[in-house]
C-alpha cells in the first residue's frame, strides 16, 4: 500500500478535508486516483440525473438517482439558448448539495482548470469536464492528475477514452449528442468503444505497441485493456437517453450505468419517468417489467433528430 500522506496535496484539498471534520491524513496522488475510481464503482448500475434546482434534485433523489449533475440549464436549453455556456454559479450548486445526500457532480468547460479548481474548493463529489459547455481551450484538456476531486469525461472511441484516463479521468461516459433526446450517438459510441476493446483483446502482446501508436494512447493503458477486456475505469452511457427502453438498450450494450440529461425534466411527468428509468437500469434484461415501466409515462421530451442540428457538441475536445 502507498504511504498515507503526501506533500503534493493542495491547500484547497486540505481545507476540504478539515471542513469535513476528518482527522485522517491526506492520501497520496496515486491513492487519490484509486479512491476516485472506487467512488465511480459505487455509482454502477445507477442513473445520474441533470438537475437545475434543489427541488429537482430532491425529485431525482426520491426517484432513485445515484447522483445528480447540478447545472443552471439542462443541455436542451443550452442548445436552444446558444451563446457561451459556462460553469454554474457555486451558490446554486451548494443549494443542490444541501438538498440531497447522494453525490453531486458539476460541469466545467473543457480545458478550464480554474473552473475545476473552484468546483473542488466547494467540495464537489465529481467534476464533468464537459463538451456540453463551450470549450475554453481548443487544444488542451485539464491535467486532471493535479486535482483531488474525481473527473468524468466524455469519449466517442477507445482512443479518446484512454487519453482522458491518461489525463486523470476516473470515469468515462459516452458523449452522445446532448440535449437532443436522440440516443443514436450514445449507441454508436458505446458500440465502437466496446468493439475496439474486443479488437485490442484479440491482438498479440507484441502488436500492442503499434496499436498504441495508432490510437494515440499510452502503451501501459492499452495493455491494461488488452489484459482486462475493459476500461480501467467505469464507463457510463450519456446523451439522448429519454425512456426506460433507452436506458435498457444502453445497459444491454455494456454501459455500467446511465446519465439522463434533458430526458427527465423536459418530460411530462418527471418523477414517474425518473423512477421508471432507474428501475429499467436495474432490470434491463426483463422485457415484461420494462413494458410495465414504459406505460403511461406521459409525454417524453420532444427531442431533435441528431441529423437536423447544426451545433455538434460531441466533436468538442478529442
Amino acid at each position, binding site marked *: 500500500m502507498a504511504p498515507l500522506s503526501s506533500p503534493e496535496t493542495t491547500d484547497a484539498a486540505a481545507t476540504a478535508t478539515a471542513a469535513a*471534520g476528518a482527522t485522517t491524513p491526506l492520501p497520496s496522488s496515486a491513492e487519490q486516483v484509486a479512491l476516485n475510481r472506487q467512488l465511480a464503482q459505487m455509482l*454502477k448500475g*445507477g442513473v445520474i440525473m441533470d438537475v437545475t434546482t434543489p427541488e429537482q434534485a430532491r425529485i431525482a433523489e426520491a426517484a432513485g438517482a*445515484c447522483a445528480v449533475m447540478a447545472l443552471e440549464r439542462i443541455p436542451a436549453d443550452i442548445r436552444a439558448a446558444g451563446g457561451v455556456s459556462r460553469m454554474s454559479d457555486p451558490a446554486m450548486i451548494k443549494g443542490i448539495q*444541501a438538498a440531497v445526500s*447522494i*453525490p453531486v457532480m458539476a460541469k466545467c468547460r473543457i480545458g478550464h482548470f480554474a473552473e475545476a479548481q473552484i468546483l473542488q474548493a466547494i467540495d464537489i463529489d465529481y467534476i464533468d469536464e464537459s463538451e456540453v459547455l463551450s470549450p475554453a481551450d481548443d487544444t488542451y484538456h485539464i491535467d486532471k492528475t493535479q486535482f483531488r476531486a474525481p473527473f468524468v469525461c466524455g469519449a466517442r472511441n477507445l482512443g479518446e477514452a484512454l487519453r482522458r484516463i491518461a489525463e486523470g479521468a476516473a470515469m468515462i461516459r459516452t458523449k452522445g449528442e446532448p440535449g437532443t433526446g436522440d440516443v443514436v450517438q450514445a449507441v454508436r459510441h458505446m458500440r465502437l468503444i466496446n468493439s475496439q476493446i474486443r479488437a485490442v483483446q484479440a491482438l498479440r502482446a507484441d502488436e500492442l505497441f503499434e496499436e498504441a501508436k495508432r490510437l494515440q494512447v499510452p502503451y501501459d493503458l492499452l495493455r491494461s485493456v488488452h489484459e482486462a477486456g475493459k476500461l480501467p475505469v467505469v464507463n457510463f452511457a450519456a446523451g439522448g437517453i429519454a425512456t426506460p427502453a433507452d436506458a435498457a438498450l444502453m445497459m444491454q450494450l455494456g454501459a455500467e450505468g446511465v446519465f439522463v440529461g434533458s430526458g427527465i425534466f423536459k418530460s411530462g411527468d418527471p418523477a414517474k419517468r425518473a*423512477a421508471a428509468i432507474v*428501475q429499467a437500469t436495474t432490470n434491463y434484461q426483463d422485457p415484461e417489467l420494462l413494458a410495465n415501466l414504459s406505460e403511461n409515462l406521459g409525454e417524453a421530451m420532444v427531442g431533435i433528430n441528431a441529423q437536423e442540428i447544426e451545433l455538434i457538441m460531441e466533436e468538442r475536445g478529442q
Partner: protein
Amino acid sequence: MTTIAVLAVQGAFIEHQRRLEALGCTVRQLRHEADLQHSFDGLVLPGGESTVQAKLLRDTGLFAPLRTLIQEGLPVLGTCAGLILLAQHLDGSGDTTNLDRQLAAKRTAVDGFRTLPVTVQRNAYGRQLGSFHAEGLWLEDGAAHPDGAPLPLTFIRAPRIENVGPAVQTLVTYQDAPVAVRYRNQIGAAFHPELDADNRLYRLFLDLL
C-alpha cells in the same frame, strides 16, 4: 456447494460476486422478487447509494421477503450502504458541512431493514474528498488478535458506527472506534472489503452459514 445471494439493484455488487466466487461460492444476483425462487445460504448487501437501494428494494418487491429472512436468521454481510440498510438507527441525513441546514432537513430519508442494533451516521467522514484508505485492528473476542495483521480499509463517503447495542460484537476497529460489527447472523462494515485483497471478513461471514 454454498450459494450466496448478492443484492444487485445498484452499486458495487460485481466486486463482491468475484470475491465470493474466488472463495468457492456460487453467487446469485437479486434484482427482482422472482430471483427469490431459488434458495440461498447467505446474503450480501453491497456498497452503492443507500437511498437508491432502499427505494429499489421496495419497487422490486425484494424488501419484505429479505427482511423476514434476515429476522429468521439468514446470515448477512452488509458493507457501507449495506450497513446503512441494516442499521436500526440513522443519525442525520449525510454530510451538511457548510451547507444550508434547512434545505438539508428535507433530504430523502433512508428506510432500511433496521435489523442491526447500531446507530450509524451517513457520510460521516465528509463528501468524496473525505474518502480514504487506512488500516484497522482485527479483533478476536474483543481483543487484538496476537498475530493478526492490520486489516486494509477503504472508506468511500463512508458511514460511521456511532453506537452499538449490548449484544453487538466489535470485529474491527479504526482509531479505537468500531468499523465492523456482528450481531447474531448479521455482519455490518463501514468499509469496502470487496475492494481490498484481505479475505478475513468474508471467511468470518462464510463461517456463519
